[in-house]
């Protein structure tokens, strides 16, 4: 644009702002910082910020803003050219313990011991795919559009798969996750979760657990694949640097292994998830989701009704806290799915349609949420109008998993982001 600009950011995002400016070519950008937060403050409180000092520089804030627009440029501020960033040397050499500490100290792990990625181990891992080690797979960033994309190749994914404890036969799944471009460590202040639903014969080939404890620490492939997703997100896209590329204020423990969900296709009365998305049953596919995390659905209204609990009403009740920023996913034991079929929902689509029509919120309540403008865009909508929680049925998705010890389910305010062929990466 060529117009002098003074960006203003709250101090909570100082490192992020400085880092982003530097990585976008303006390491000396004249960012003016305010106290945190701005959101929720009264007009008088905000005006007081302006009359006070920049909490980073200590200088009077508005004087600094004016200076940002009028002080002559320094030599550094006028520089052009290219800075080729370095990610360090290709190898590290030290004792076992020192290397473990080194990888951890440099933000390359999940703070647990890793399998050291020696050349021998990486060569063995690369036998898990027919693709060339130098083949570029794709790109990923901590938040698309907000950070520069990093790219990565098959070898780099394999290194991270070794670190996570994967076997070579898991590599196609990990490559597919990398190819999804979805980081497991979104930069958002929200502390997002990610989920990966695995479908196809590969679940049995890898001995993935879709029975009792399917989403828990009871399966080496699920544990290693989920961990690899976190590792590669950190190392291949620069995600997960607190204060710079990770701002999740609470953090999310699901990010250690993420929600890896091999669907229980054989016990489900419905079509598998990937078939719903247009794949053939015999294809191996991973489908990825991102959003607010997962919680139990056992407080759902209607679950005490006999002989068949009103699972659909329970789901509608479970979805009450969900906002429109992300979709609604129910992860349910096969017993729940079979109960829903008894209630007349013989397809996932019928259940989604029913929920879209019957899961509603008043315009008044919707307006009072953080997402009021998005949920009720028309200011003329009366307060007592009941609007659908989601405008489209495809915001609802269902996955069947579990060992049929009890008809339980969980719900997650997460959105489907796409499916990737695992077969492509074998």
């Amino acid at each position, binding site marked *: 644009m*060529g*117009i*002098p*600009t*003074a*960006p*203003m950011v*709250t101090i909570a*995002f100082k*490192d992020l*702002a400085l880092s982003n*400016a530097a*990585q976008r*070519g*303006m390491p000396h950008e*004249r960012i003016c910082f305010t106290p*945190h*937060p*701005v*959101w*929720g403050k009264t007009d008088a409180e*905000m*005006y007081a*910020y*302006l009359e006070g000092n920049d909490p980073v520089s200590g200088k009077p804030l508005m004087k600094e803003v004016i200076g940002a*627009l*009028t002080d*002559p*440029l320094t030599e550094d501020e*006028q520089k*052009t050219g*290219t*800075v080729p*960033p*370095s*990610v*360090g040397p*290709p190898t*590290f*050499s*030290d004792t076992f*313990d020192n290397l473990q500490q*080194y*990888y951890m*100290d*440099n*933000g*390359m792990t999940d703070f647990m011991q890793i399998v050291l*990625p*020696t*050349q021998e181990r990486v060569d063995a891992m690369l036998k898990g795919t027919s693709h060339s080690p130098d083949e570029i797979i794709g790109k990923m960033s901590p938040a698309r559009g*907000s950070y*520069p*994309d*990093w*790219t990565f190749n098959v070898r*780099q994914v394999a290194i991270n798969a070794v670190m996570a404890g994967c076997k070579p036969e898991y590599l196609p799944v990990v490559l597919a996750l990398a190819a999804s471009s979805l980081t497991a460590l979104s930069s958002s202040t929200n502390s997002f979760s990610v989920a990966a639903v695995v479908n196809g014969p590969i679940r049995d080939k890898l001995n993935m657990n879709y029975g009792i404890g399917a989403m828990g620490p009871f399966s080496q492939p699920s544990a290693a694949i989920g961990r690899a997703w976190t590792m*590669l997100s950190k190392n*291949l896209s*620069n995600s997960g640097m607190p204060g710079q590329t990770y701002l999740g204020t609470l953090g999310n423990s699901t990010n250690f292994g993420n929600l890896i969900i091999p669907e229980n296709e054989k016990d489900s009365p419905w079509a598998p998830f990937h078939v719903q998305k247009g794949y053939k049953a015999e294809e191996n596919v991973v489908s990825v989701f991102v959003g607010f995390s997962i919680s139990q659905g056992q407080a759902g209204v209607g679950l005490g009704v006999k002989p068949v609990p009103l699972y659909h009403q329970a789901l509608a009740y479970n979805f009450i806290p969900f906002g429109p920023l992300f979709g609604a996913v129910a992860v349910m034991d096969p017993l729940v799915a079979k109960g829903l079929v008894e209630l007349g929902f013989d397809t996932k689509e019928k259940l989604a349609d029913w929920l879209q029509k019957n899961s509603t919120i008043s315009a008044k309540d919707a307006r009072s949420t953080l997402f009021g403008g998005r949920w009720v865009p028309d200011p003329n909508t009366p307060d007592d109008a009941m609007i659908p929680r989601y405008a489209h049925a495809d915001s609802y998705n269902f996955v069947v998993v579990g060992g049929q010890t009890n008809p339980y389910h969980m719900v997650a305010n997460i959105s489907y982001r796409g499916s990737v062929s695992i077969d492509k990466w074998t």
Partner: protein
Amino acid sequence: MNRRKMLSFLGLAPTLLTAAAAEAEKAKAKKKDGKAPAGEPKIEALNPRGIAPAIQLVPMAPRLASLDGKTIYLVSDGFPGADHFLAQIALWFQKNMPSVTTTYRLKAGALPDDDPKLWAEIKAKGNAVIMAIGH
């Protein structure tokens, strides 16, 4: 901003600095007792990092000699609170620098999206921008 932080912000690996520091420590240890650290085997392991994009330096736009009589666009990127905050900045200029004209605009699209139409307007009619991130 210290050098380590600057290098980190530019995507240059702290390992570059850590490696140098580690070498210095080893040299110190060697000097201390005259021997290399005792014989635990060394392992060579690979760097797991991906390919960071090259950084194209962008020179900053020339600055104004003063703001007197100038038009400043106050641009919100849509974070909650940014609009109210910028309204206070407009008020501040009215009280303290009344010769400055301020014009409020909400950038179109999602937070990281460009708004070429707005940039063109500012280039045609404005002299400076204050952009507030809110939060």
